[in-house]
């Protein structure tokens, strides 16, 4: 698995020189920084609200970054023909796929860690108290991004970038509404076709609402460690599933 590490490191280096990373990063930081200026916030200086909204924004930018990093990772190398210099070396396709994924994961970890520190500094400045609980929320966002990145990377083994982005957004939305909208459709719906379509989405897609703990972090004492452990296992399961599906497609793909 030496090659996986080499390739992951290469993804990080590549991200470091891509302007898109900085745009997303700076934009995220800027929005978090100006969030106290939002009209709703001026109703009262509430660090709870700041934590909640900052974590929601971190989640949004994390997901955008996960898609941006994953969507073109393999197609970009095929189009740019740099992949030939890798796969003609003793690098297996599994190592290649895992290397790409771990590189994306490392990028996301760095990005979210910086975001978390930014939020903590912001909250500390406002509330005059450190709030390490923020990182519970950041960790949950990281798990959600890890699932999104694995799904997007899987799609990138066969779909074009526009199709991939569209499908990933749809996936993201469905995974967030499954406990509410999809559940209601299945239980209360009367249209047979709608129920038929909702069934696989409800039972097969991951529930990404599991990772939306910004309110618990913002307004209470966060979530129990056991909960985080459980949702970590849940995320790992789906990540492995999507990577496995990606490998099944990629291992015999003509390049």
């Amino acid at each position, binding site marked *: 698995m030496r090659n996986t590490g080499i390739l992951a490191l290469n993804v990080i280096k590549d991200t470091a020189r891509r302007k898109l990373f900085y745009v997303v990063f700076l934009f995220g930081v800027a929005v978090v920084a100006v969030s106290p200026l939002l009209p709703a916030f001026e109703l009262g200086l509430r660090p709870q609200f700041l934590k909640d909204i900052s974590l929601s924004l971190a989640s949004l930018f994390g997901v955008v970054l996960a898609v941006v990093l994953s969507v073109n990772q393999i197609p970009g190398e095929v189009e740019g*023909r*740099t992949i*030939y*210099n890798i*796969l003609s*070396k003793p*690098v297996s396709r599994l190592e290649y796929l895992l290397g790409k994924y771990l590189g994306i994961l490392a990028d996301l970890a760095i990005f979210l860690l910086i975001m978390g520190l930014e939020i903590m500094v912001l909250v500390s400045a406002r509330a005059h108290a450190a709030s390490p609980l923020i990182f519970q929320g950041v960790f949950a966002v990281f798990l959600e991004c890890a699932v999104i990145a694995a799904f997007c990377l899987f799609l990138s083994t066969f779909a074009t970038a526009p199709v991939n982005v569209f499908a990933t957004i749809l996936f993201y939305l469905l995974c967030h509404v499954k406990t509410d909208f999809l559940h209601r459709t299945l239980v209360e719906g009367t249209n047979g076709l709608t129920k038929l379509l909702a069934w696989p989405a409800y039972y097969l897609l991951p529930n990404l609402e599991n990772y939306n703990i910004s309110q618990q972090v913002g307004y209470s004492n966060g979530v129990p460690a056991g909960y985080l452990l459980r949702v970590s296992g849940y995320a790992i399961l789906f990540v492995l599933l999507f990577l496995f599906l990606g490998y099944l497609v990629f291992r*015999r793909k*003509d390049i």
Partner: protein
Amino acid sequence: MADPAVILGDIKKSYRSGFSRERKAAVDGLSLEVKSGEIFGLLGPNGAGKTTTLKIILGIIFPDDGGGTVLGRPLGDRASHYRLGFLPEQPYFYSFLTAEKGLDLYGKFFGLNKDERASRSARLLDMVGLHRDSHLTFDKYSKGMLQRFGIAQSLINNPDLVIMDEPSSGLDPVGQKEVRDILIHLKEDGKTIFLSSHQLSEVENICDSVSIVNRGRPVRQGMLSELLAVEGITKVVLSGAATAERVRFTGLARHIKETNGDTELEVDSNDLYRVLDLARELGLEIVSVEPSRQTLEDLFMEAVKERGH
């Protein structure tokens, strides 16, 4: 005798064109054998299936049918990649890397340690003439410089088999000559070279064997010296023949020409002994007797036209 470096047997590969169900054959029953230690040239017009063949050998694409071995291992076996180098056509590299870092990266995939990577990088960059530009990132490289780096990276693991897709592409005449010298040097080092090329003169100068493919099928294959020999015709070169003596060969030779004071005769093999006897009778020096050769360009055009290119 060493095992062949590459064996391909009845390889077939086709692609679906657009949304149509019809498939277009890129390689259609290609068989070939590359002997260890030789320079093998794969020739053919655009779209003949040359690059597809190279990618099949490398396991980058998979044949629909047929099989083969590379350095004694089945096609696509990763173990053979440790002893193999590849130069893609018009190569591209991560634009954020420098030549030094690029070679370092590729060297890591072979498990070379840091010192080995550094010493090989320095030697290879010197060999391809990039040592002065090794600190520049690839986005500042010209097409020719990328090609030179491509050659260097294909040799980082000191491979036994080097596969090159259009090695002289994008190079000026000086660069082309340097590449030829590198290839000859590699052959002297005992390496096997498998190249595809449009440069017929390059192939004619350095290749031991060739395969000419057209529309995915081999149309001529074998040792270059045998392929270029014109069957039944022998070239005889005589020295010291005056005009009057040259006239004596008129009925026996198909063609007579004077080159640098020597007389060159193209003779039907059936008449060869009569020509040699006459030369001795006239007291002329026989400089050489060898099978008449056509140029590779003639052979290529003839082979390609046969399949209606």
